[in-house]
């Protein structure tokens, strides 16, 4: 696939899942969001401001920074809580945050969504026996998350492909403009509970059709 993919792996306790996920997703989105664009005539624009907010975690010794947009937070929280509910108390799961671009296509076809960066966070949930272990875990997970955040920042600081800044007509193809106060790149959050083996039927069918049509 023509897209970068980054994988982060964390091992947490069941009650820490939500906060850990929020911390990582928000950290990535913080760097992949910008202020609202205000287009002027002559094809120029100015960028609005974005506030940030420190969030302290309850179950982890960790504080992360997120964009101070309640709307964005709500969307993320919803996705994460769905993931948490689906995850069993002792299992594996993966949540991925995918940034994509839309490509307009002609009438009979729907718009193509072409991902350019995918972050997959693999979660391993563990059960702990006693309070002492929990305490240790609380610190360790905090440290781990700190490392991951630095990891994310390193990846983002690399000079790699980003969609070009769009003109006013294209802005919806690159950025998510539905939020009032912040404008992240178009993103999608999906999750997967176990490693489901085998190509899904839909991809096979797609491939079959493509192959029969191929030149």
């Amino acid at each position, binding site marked *: *696939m*023509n*897209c*970068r993919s980054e994988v982060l792996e964390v091992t947490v306790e069941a009650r820490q899942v939500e906060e850990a996920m929020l911390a990582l997703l928000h950290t990535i989105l913080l760097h992949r969001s910008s202020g609202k664009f205000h287009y*002027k005539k002559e*094809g*120029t*624009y*100015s*960028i609005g401001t974005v506030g940030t907010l420190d969030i302290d975690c309850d179950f982890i010794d960790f504080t992360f920074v997120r964009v101070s947009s309640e709307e964005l937070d709500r969307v993320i929280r919803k996705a994460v809580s769905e993931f948490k509910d689906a995850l069993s108390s002792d299992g594996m799961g993966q949540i991925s945050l995918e940034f994509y*671009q839309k*490509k307009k296509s002609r009438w009979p076809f729907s718009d*193509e969504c*072409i*991902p*350019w960066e995918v972050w997959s966070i693999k979660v391993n949930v563990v059960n702990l026996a006693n309070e002492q272990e929990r305490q240790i875990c609380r610190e360790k997970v905090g440290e781990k998350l700190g490392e991951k955040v630095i990891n994310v920042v390193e990846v983002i600081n690399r000079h*790699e*492909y980003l*969609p*070009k*800044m*769009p*003109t*006013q007509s*294209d802005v919806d*193809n690159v950025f998510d403009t539905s939020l009032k106060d912040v404008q992240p790149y178009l993103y999608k959050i999906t999750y997967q509970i176990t490693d489901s*083996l*085998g*190509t899904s*039927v839909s*991809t*096979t069918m797609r*491939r*079959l059709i*493509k*192959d*029969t*049509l*191929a*030149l």
Partner: protein
Amino acid sequence: MAHFDTEYQRLEASYSDSPPGEENLLMHVPEGAKSQWHHIENLDLFFQRISFCTYVLYKNGFTCMLLGEIFELVQLLFVVGFTVFLANCVDYDILFANKFVNHTDSSKVTLPDAFLPVDVCSARIRENAFVIFVLIISGVFWLHRLVKFIYNVCCYWEIRSFYINALKMTMSELPYATWQEVQARIVEIQKEHQICIHKKELTELDIYHRILRFKNYMVAMVNKSLLPVRFRLPGLGESVFYTRGLKYNFELIFFWGPGSLFENEWSLKSEYKRGGNRLELADKLASRILWIGIANLLLCPVILVWQILYAFFSYTEVIKREPGSLGARCWSLYGRCYLRHFNELDHELMSRLSKGYKPASKYMNCFLSPLLTVVAKNVAFFAGSLLAVLIALTIYDEDVLSVEHVLSSITLLGVCITVCRSFIPDKHMVFCPEQLLRVILAHIHYMPDHWQGNAHRYETRDQFSQLFQYKAVFILEELISPVVTPIILIFCLRRKSLEIIDFFRNFTVEVIGVGDTCSFAQMDIRQHGHPAWMSAGKTEASIYQQAEDGKTELSLMHFAITNPQWQPPQETTHFISQLKERVHREATSDTHPLSLSESEPRSLIANLLVGPSTLTSIHFGGDSSLTNHAAAGSSDGASALRSLSPISSSLHLRGSLSAAHRAPGHTSTMSKAMAGSGTDARTVSSGSSVWEGQLTSLVLSEYASTEMSIHALYMHELHKQQSRGELSRHTWHRQDSDESSDSIPDEVRSEPNPHSRHFPRSHTFPTTVPSPSEGASSHSSSQQRYSGSTTDSFSAGGQVVRSARGVPMGGWAEDGQAAPRHHDTLPEESSEDDMPPHIHKVNAVCV
């Protein structure tokens, strides 16, 4: 108000400069997505389309293409409709005048009289279940073609706009764009548009990898004899069965079918990359193969009808694409896989094989059975006399024609004579299979070792006919394929599932920006080189990892020659330049017929050249130097080029050309270089300025193929001389892949003694030819014998060099000891756990 004196102070200046206000906010100018060509989702498909379109559009243009496809659709409708009409709606009794029509006005029978009325006709069709079955399938087939056509038009349109907008080609040069140019431009625009987002720059190899990802796997699997395509049938001996249906099924199983090894087009599933549970995976694969085989068996009749339609349909296309296919023979599907280099595009392979078509059919025609010739001569004699009498009578009085069956017997006799004549050899043909085979080799680049020196034998001919089969056989195989394919899948392929799993695990590398590719396609001498093919000392490959028949080395040379801009990694560059230099030195050095050297096969090129050029009837003088010939030969233009004669000038010229090509603004520099280099400047600069670039690229590709031919011949020759010495000490016939493919015999690694290195003979062509005693003698003396028997077409130099090499005799004595020692490979199960996952990450620009 207390006044605190703190360090924080207002910065007066900055505020006075920019008072708050909306107008003076920082303003940005959007770059906009000027073209839609940045960041393409499926690059594999995109590049495949580009390469296909370039090839198809080349000289045809968009409109021709469109019209051609539309006519093909109409043709299919016509053929199906007409056949059904002929079968069901014609009253043949009326046509043959067995039944009389009662006409009132005239006695003449008209065509419409023979047609059945519409209602009778449709009733007859409706009653016949078979016809309805065929009609339904053809309907589906036609719809499929229609949808495909529309889809293709969309694709062409997209690629066309890519050419014009992104590659900045003008409309006029569009039909003349060669693949090389297009590729160079793609590499260029990657820097600007970033089509592939993983890398800043795209190399030629990346593009080839993406286009040929799966084909490279197939080539490698055929090379390592993993696919069950050779069979030993009781009556027919060794035979090859590889049809399109079988190929389609292989691809379905490995690459994209439900539950295939590949997750998507660019990555192997992660569980197949780990060696841990290979047995389970093999079981899973085996059961999948079984199911697919059963499905094939059930769908057999549908596939059969589909295949007939498809054969009809693709036939016109094939003729359009390869002019060589009009003859009686064609390169078999297996041959195409066996002869294909790694990273060789379809059109490159096709043009190579088409060039080899003529000598190949000549070679095959050498072998006409004398018995058949005698019979054919006599049959032709009798048929001819009958025909002559009939024709003479007809000329005398044409009423003879109206006698019943005279016209048909004249036609039949004519056909009979034509058939017989094809069995009677040309009186002027010279029997020189060895040279013909050498000319073939110059184009096809691969052949098993034991063919050399055995070209006159029927075994060699039979094996060559596996690559180059009668078209009738090809069609017959295609027709029985729906029945045979499931049998092969269920009984042969299923047994190999463990090997297949191992193959994919061991020979897959992940290249950044490309995805998972076959590691053979990296053409890394160190990993997959074969010590008998010039990479001795450089290669670290075990026998399992070596590509057979010098595939790695030849592919590497081919790729480097066709893509002069490609910058290979350090060692590879070294290998290429070393080899080129050797060939060059051989070519330019004053090869006196009597100059000998024991260590280096000097005057090799002279041998190589004299063989083919005598055949293509370019006269060579006695002992004048090659460079003189080159100057003389190159005036003959393209035909001389093809006949390999102006080697030194081509090498010189090509060197300067590729050097110029690397420089920016290459077109102008190139024509200068051409003009400077003298010999061929005339042909090039005579064209108008529009044609100049076109012509240079054509000449360039012509030179490239010539150069590759020379390198291929040189490498084969060197290989032969190298291995003959060692083969006579040690001969190891690898009969089947099962013995060595799974685990690596470690004695091979640990033996430093060069003399005991084993040279497996061609893997894909297990030798069946020589019996032990005969084999040894043919190794040592066959060359002499045959150069002796065809002295007139061989130079003196060739004989001297060959006969002067002291070849130790009696190699076969050790044969028996070497072979069994080699077969005790490591037990399969024990090596399972410590088998490291052979997936390497290639981080840098791919190797």
